[in-house]
């Protein structure tokens, strides 16, 4: 025991040494910060994104780096602890002098680091779908805004499946609450009556779904086609789908469309009871495109396993990283202010066979895909938007947000501009 402790501390000292020497050679490399939790509850999802970043950086270096310099990843572990995200972000920018940071998973972690990035004027690329209602000069939202995921999914159910009654089920925290508020307003604007919408919230990690599923069953037996729009988060999904299966509700009777269930989440569970249920994302591993095949091959080689899957936030990092690379080339420097200006309008290939562009509101354009879960844990694409959808920072369906636009180009340079009062109110946290 003592010996291993000793070895470990020697190892740590060596590691610290190499880190110091790395800092010493800072002038010859461009540093990229990776801010993903490698321990704690979020480690399940975020570790994969850290590996994705390491792979992208390695590949870029093989292509000769950037501006004649090598890229160097700086990985820190915020340990699923929201205040620690802010501390680690500050450490990356002030101590390690990184030029851009790729990271965060939950909205809480993003809100926690946002003031740091604005204060130190650095760049953050955020790769996960979120509830919108935010646009910062220093953040680039490469995940989906509600109009790039939730709204098209509802359109699909309404127009293609003919759904008339809606269950909005979510975990009780900010993303589901805001998304459901937007969806409720949207459905009402489309003429859905109050009594045809059922909203339900459950605590984190909820495992006893009997009465909720039974309520959904009753709600769905009123003779009108019913669907569940699920913003249920994480672990709670498995018992939910199991209970649906046990109570005999198949995807043909009451389809469930989820916004937080992807390939990575499905790889840990028995998918038989889930077949036919839906998910809306901007990317699926099963998409047939050359870029995707190449990406999957590179990923499985990098991670040394043929069983590892790819998912939507990974594609978001792929897009975000390539956009940053292109913007740096365009600006000829890694200076955050110059890159911020250069990146708007930059278009790079996404993994579904098209191009994604950075919009002036710091969101990107992406196609929206609806997939059905298969028994092998993959999704079959059953529907796709006809073109690309531009991310909308401020929802058009919410009171108080529909008059607000975001445009970071001069002369407006504002993330929160009210077109009615012609007033820029700055960032609200």
């Amino acid at each position: 025991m003592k010996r291993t402790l000793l070895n470990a501390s020697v190892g740590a000292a060596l590691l610290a040494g190499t880190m110091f020497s790395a800092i010493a050679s800072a002038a010859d490399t461009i540093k990229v910060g990776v801010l993903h939790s490698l321990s704690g509850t979020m480690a399940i999802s975020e570790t994969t994104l850290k590996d994705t970043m390491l792979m992208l950086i390695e590949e870029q270096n093989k292509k000769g780096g950037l501006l004649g310099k090598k890229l160097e990843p700086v990985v820190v572990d915020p340990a699923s602890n929201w205040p620690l995200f802010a501390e680690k972000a500050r450490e990356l920018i002030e101590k390690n002098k990184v030029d851009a940071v790729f990271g965060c998973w939950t909205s809480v972690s993003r809100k926690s680091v946002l003031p740091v990035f604005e204060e130190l004027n650095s760049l953050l690329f955020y790769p996960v779908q979120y509830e919108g209602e935010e646009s910062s000069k220093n953040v680039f939202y490469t995940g989906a805004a509600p109009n790039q995921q939730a709204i098209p999914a509802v359109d699909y159910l309404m127009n293609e499946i003919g759904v008339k009654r809606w269950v909005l089920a979510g975990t009780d925290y900010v993303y589901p609450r805001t998304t459901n508020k937007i969806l409720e307003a949207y459905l009402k604007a489309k003429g859905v009556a109050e009594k045809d919408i059922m909203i339900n919230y459950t605590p984190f990690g909820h495992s006893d779904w009997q009465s909720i599923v039974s309520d959904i069953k009753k709600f769905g037996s009123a003779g009108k086609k019913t669907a569940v729009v699920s913003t249920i988060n994480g672990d709670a999904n498995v018992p939910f789908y199991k209970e649906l299966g046990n109570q005999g509700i198949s995807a043909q009777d009451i389809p469930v469309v989820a916004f937080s269930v992807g390939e990575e989440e499905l790889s840990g569970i028995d998918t038989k009871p889930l077949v036919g249920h839906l998910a809306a994302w901007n990317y699926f591993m099963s998409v047939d495109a050359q870029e995707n095949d190449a990406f999957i091959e590179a990923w499985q080689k990098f991670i040394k396993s043929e069983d590892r899957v790819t998912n939507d936030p990974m594609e978001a990092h792929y897009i975000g990283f390539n956009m940053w690379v292109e913007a740096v080339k365009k600006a000829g420097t890694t200076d955050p202010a110059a890159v911020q200006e250069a990146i708007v309008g930059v278009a790079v290939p996404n993994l579904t066979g098209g191009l994604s562009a950075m919009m002036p509101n710091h969101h990107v354009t992406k196609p929206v895909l609806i997939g059905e879960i298969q028994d092998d844990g993959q999704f079959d694409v059953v529907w796709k938007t006809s073109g690309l959808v531009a991310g909308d920072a401020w929802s058009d369906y919410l009171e108080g947000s529909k008059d607000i636009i975001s445009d970071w180009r001069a002369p407006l340079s504002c993330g929160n501009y009210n077109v009615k009062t012609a007033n820029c109110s700055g960032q609200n946290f």
Partner: protein
Amino acid sequence: MLIRSLIILLLLMTTSAQAAKVETGNDAYNPIFEALYTGSFTEKEQALKDLMQTDIEDKKKFLNGIVNKTLMVHKKSKKVVWVEKQGSKFKMTDAFSGEDLGLDKKRKVKKFAINNKMRSQVSALISTMDLDSDDAEKRLAAINSMLANPAPEYAGFLKQRLDKESNNKVKQAMQLGIALADLGHEDTEVRLAAIDNVADSLAPAVRSALANMAENDTDKQVREAAQKVVLEQEEQVRFFGYIETLFFGLSLGSVLVLAAIGLAITFGVMGVINMAHGELIMLGAYTTYLMQQAMPDSVGLALVLSIPAAFIVSGVVGIGIERSVIRFLYGRPLETLLATFGISLILQQMVRTVISPQNVPVSNPEWMSGFIQINSVLSITYNRMYIILFCLAVFALLFFILKKTRLGLEVRAVSQNRAMARAMGIRSSRVDAMTFGLGSGIAGVAGVALSQLTNVGPNLGQAYIVDSFMVVVFGGVGNLWGTLIGGMSLGVVNKFMEPWTGAVLAKILVLVFIILFIQKRPRGLFPQKGRAAEG
């Protein structure tokens, strides 16, 4: 920007046009499978209908193959193939010539993508074939799938078949179908008679048809008749709703009891505040996972064998904890709490390192999934029913051990008066270890049950530790009956509150209720009486 996306769109269209070609070796089949392969979903639905018109012999096999993804297209040779998984590759056989095409990687073959609508279409197609099946169950399923979307023209069709049908159940379903179709009949008398005929059925199709008639029928008499039946049915539905909620409550309660019953022994009888109790449950759940991995072909047997296995694993770990840590800390509750909390973290991290930080899949055996349909509005899921029975069985067994065996006698003696018990020749330290092992083993058994209901992961235990303490404290420390009745009543109260407060608030209200209750009766529902209560 617009031009660029147009160009991409054009590029996409041309590439997909090149890709579309399927070789079946028969010109009549080619366009059908091509449509199924690359067509839009409307084209695919048409193609399925076309497929039914072809002279392919075993259509059912092909339809099932498309749904179950055993029929695919080899991207390179464009051949339609049957695939069979072999390791990380697929073994392919030509679907039409039966020729063996060897192995290829997963991404080199592509499925016929289908959606839910097509899945329903296929099951409808298969069930029409099943109407003539020799198996009564299949005929019943076929009729029921027709009833899901009733149409007036079904009446004639079903009437024709009614005389030929021999099975009673199928006959009843057909009669209901006829009555349901008659609800849409032009003749008022026929409609009125049909309302009488369906009045006893609570099937959703019937209820929505009646509700519709009660509002929209052209004839006043019919409207009134429908309204009357609707009101009666609502009464019944509400009654069955209460029964259902009661069942849900009992099943939630039995989960609580299972999780708490091991703690009722270690905390209740021995007075050890064991924060690692949740992790002992987790170990039981992981034992189930490992057993299923060891025998992947017999999921059910693995589950049954997991019960003793989990008891032994958690029991041995429990005895280990007692011998190595807890026995030095008797009478020092604060230190015990901290030490066992530390153990719980160690056990969690051990599972993360040894097995995986991610949740592991534990599958349900056939006989645990599905439900018993009591009537159209009340059904009871098998897994919940088994959990309730299992909980009662565990409780009975534990009760028997404590009341009727020598170990039980010794346990009670030591917990009531340690010094006196020792004076009577009981080796109290051995009894302590055995008691703690028993409580821990029962926690492991609870883990087997929980693995069937929830996620099996390193955090499983933490989700149940608070609930377990809650139940034991509420029921009365040191009383097994208290744990049973306390757990069951908390479950039922929770479920009855859930519909009108929501799941989040229900849980909070239950906690508040317990806090108030403990203020009033600090020793719980069933306080220990007599001298034992002093300790």
